[in-house]
């Protein structure tokens, strides 16, 4: 096989794979695409704390993702605790959340957190900073940072909210994991 033939064969294979992925998004295909193209945390980056402005932008983003309104103090506290835990103890999250806050602020042309809730929601919808990533998004999203926001930051913020007492309260739990209390609660239905 000549070099030209080899390159042509590779192109045909890649084109076929992409076409297959777009046309036939089976779970297996999706997993393969996600594994190959998904953005990853930079595990070698520093750990630490976000600045207050960065934290405010990240929390404001979480509000759009999980509620149709600004958080109450308790809801905010749970999300702040989650983000702080991530950035201080888990490699890669400080860089992820810094990048997310910077990207949101850039698109807002001001501090994202300074926008009202409706404007934030419009921006998030317009830029599709949402966790509903489809296979083709991995191929057509050329800004890897935007993809990282959708694939890594948005789901993590959602997880943070639903891990918090406020998140557990949405399904009727009076006490969330990690909070100590009534031992025998587990013996009866909740509520």
């Amino acid at each position, binding site marked *: 096989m000549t070099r030209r033939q080899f390159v042509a064969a590779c192109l045909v294979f890649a084109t076929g794979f992409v076409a297959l992925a777009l046309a036939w998004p089976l779970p297996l295909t999706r997993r393969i695409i996600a594994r190959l193209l998904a953005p990853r945390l930079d595990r070698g980056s520093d750990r630490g704390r976000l600045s207050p402005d960065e934290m405010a932008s990240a929390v404001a983003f979480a509000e759009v993702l999980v509620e149709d309104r600004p958080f109450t103090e308790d809801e905010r506290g749970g999300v702040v605790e989650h983000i702080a835990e991530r950035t201080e103890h888990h490699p890669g999250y400080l860089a992820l959340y810094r990048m997310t806050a910077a990207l949101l602020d850039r698109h807002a042309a001001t501090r994202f957190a300074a926008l009202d809730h409706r404007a934030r929601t419009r921006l998030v919808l317009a830029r599709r900073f949402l966790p509903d990533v489809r296979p083709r998004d991995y191929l057509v999203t050329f800004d890897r940072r935007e993809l990282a926001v959708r694939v890594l930051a948005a789901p993590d913020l*959602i997880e943070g909210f639903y891990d918090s007492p406020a998140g557990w309260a949405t399904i009727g739990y009076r006490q969330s994991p990690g909070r100590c209390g009534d*031992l025998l609660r587990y013996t009866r239905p909740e509520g």
Partner: protein
Amino acid sequence: MDTAVCIVGAGAAGSIMAAELTRRGVDVVVLEAGPRHDFARRAEYARRFLKGDNPWRAPLTALERHTSVGAVPYTLEWNRVRGVGGGTLHWEGYAFRFHPDDFRLRTLYAVGEDWPLTYADLEPYYRQAEESLGVAGAADDPWGPPRSSAFPLPAFPFSHADRFYREAASALGIAVAHMPQARNSAAYDGRARCSACTVCHACPTGAKASVDLTHIARAEASGRATVLADVSALRLDVDASDRVSTVTFAGHDGKRRQVTPRICVVAGGAVETARLLLLSASTRFPTGLANRSGLVGKYFMSHPSIDVTGRLTERVYPYRTGFSTATSRQFAVGAARRTRAGFFLEFLNSAEAPLGRQAAWSAKWGAELREHVRERFGRSLGVRVYCEQLPELRNSVSLDPDARDHFGDPVPRLTWNVGAYEGAALQAARGVATRILEGTGALGVTTTAMRYASHQMGTHRMGDDPRASVVDGNLRAHDVANLYLVGAGCFVTGTPSPPTLTIAALAIRAADHIATLIRRPA
């Protein structure tokens, strides 16, 4: 530093040994490779654990290195803890006595090996172990071993979810019993009653027994124990009479120091104990200390495990405890063990991913996400299976010449395979668990891929024949008169049950023996 007894490792075996020896008036020095974890930080540890962090990870990661070969990759990450308290810092607290049959597998079923002691030999020590750890349970298990006394604490009541399991199991003729656990169902021994914080892997209240709280504290209070944390035993040196003369150890700075004990007890866990013996090869023991049998590091065992889960239409309300409350040992005993391993069933109170993770995985947001979690969450039941593993020569802990630790020593290399005997048990267990779940009305019953429990066993097995074992029934090395190897490494067979209570009982029994020797005039 001179001492009567030097104990290497402050996990379950080492800490209990320290408490038992000091209680009998014997001075000990305990060397622990990991740190002391301040109890005041438990709440922080619990928060970190809930966020997927391992709070027990030793700060010096170079000490954690290991490699794995064999058909099933075996990692120690998350599956052991270095630190004062060892594995009991993160264990689930399930405190099972072995069944009398477990000690006689060869005689009864022509598989595995018999232990050099019987259940009757160990029963008084099981009782002491239960009292010292504070085990809650009920004598309601028709497949459990005979007992000479009641459990120290009343059992934790069955959960709301257990109602489904019990009804379905009962219809199939399967007995479900209360889970025995070293966790306070009432205040006990100065520790609080469990308050269902659901993070038992980093219990923030101390209601779950961990030997840093229950035994090291006692040993130190006696004034006879010196516990050195963050120091690694590097070599055991022997004299011309084949006795351990010194234990060489070092802290993170690498500076070598020595302890000169009358008796040395190695309690580093099945992996590190074998590794230390292999590292201590000398002209007198060219293949490793106490290894004239060639069996140090051999017969490494764990517990192959699967989860079988299904979904109900009703809610079962998971994540309100961090532990299970129901079990069945019906399949852990009996003549079927001639052809397949015994297995025991744990009925899970939380059989699905936590709420936050499910929300994150859903790829939904806003109001649609709220509806999704309300609809989906809290309807799963699951049965976890732990399967015994026969000792096999091909499964081992050896030294990896290509990888080095912080001190420049070869790291442990784990070789782990699962055989047809265990495979047949997992197949049978899957059928049993599926029938139970279908009996609850669960739909979409699925089985996870095989995993393994955080239990490492074998590697310095006990026995009467020095050619076929490393230690005798008192856990004394056949080849080295003042060396004792305690912990699950001495197990002859894996048995289906979690190992910790048996580790404790054997350590107490060995401490009895050592204390008698120490008191005897030289």
